[in-house]
């Protein structure tokens, strides 16, 4: 499993369960992951992205997402 797959798996579990390793994550919270670990949580994507890039400047590493149920994108 590569880093992106690991991050995707952790993000899905956080969105499903609303918690990770005992830490609660409420819907609407934005989270940054690096190597499958939570490295930031804040109210907006820009804030967690800033923390993520301070830890690893490579845009191909890490993941940011908003906690919540999956939303289907409908493209007509």
């Amino acid at each position, binding site marked *: 499993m590569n880093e992106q797959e690991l991050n995707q798996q952790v993000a899905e579990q956080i969105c499903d369960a609303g918690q990770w390793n005992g830490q609660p994550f409420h819907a609407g919270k934005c989270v940054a992951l690096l190597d499958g670990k939570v490295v930031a949580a804040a109210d907006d994507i820009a804030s967690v992205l800033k923390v993520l890039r301070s830890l690893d400047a490579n845009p191909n590493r890490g993941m940011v997402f908003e906690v919540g149920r999956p939303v289907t*994108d409908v493209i007509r």
Partner: protein
Amino acid sequence: MAIVYFPSLAEADTIEVTFTKPSGGEENLRLLVDSGFTGQSCFVLPENADDLAHAATTASQASGALQGTQRRVVVAARIDALSFANDVIAILADTSTLALPAATQGMVGLPFLRLFRRWGAEQSADGVWRFFLESDTP
């Protein structure tokens, strides 16, 4: 309030968005406006637009003209005339299946339009259509 106008194509409304690259450059893309594009993602951009991605975000499911699991990224979108800048989610996909007008490089959907106070299309006195975005910023 600030308002910006974008000339419409004969067959569609479009807007121009500036994307800041993580490498420091930027790229202007003309995007087809589709208010029927709903969900969480703001844009569909070409799959080779990796250089615009500031980070990966969760993959999503899509239905309609795009189907199945879609790769998504965070992009930094700007419209300078409105002093608008925001980090939003874009789908990176094979846009050749979307039958986009020749002058456009992707699509912008309702989640992006709703970041603005008002949006829509209007016809000028001389019969020319244009699309507008309006924000609360002076």
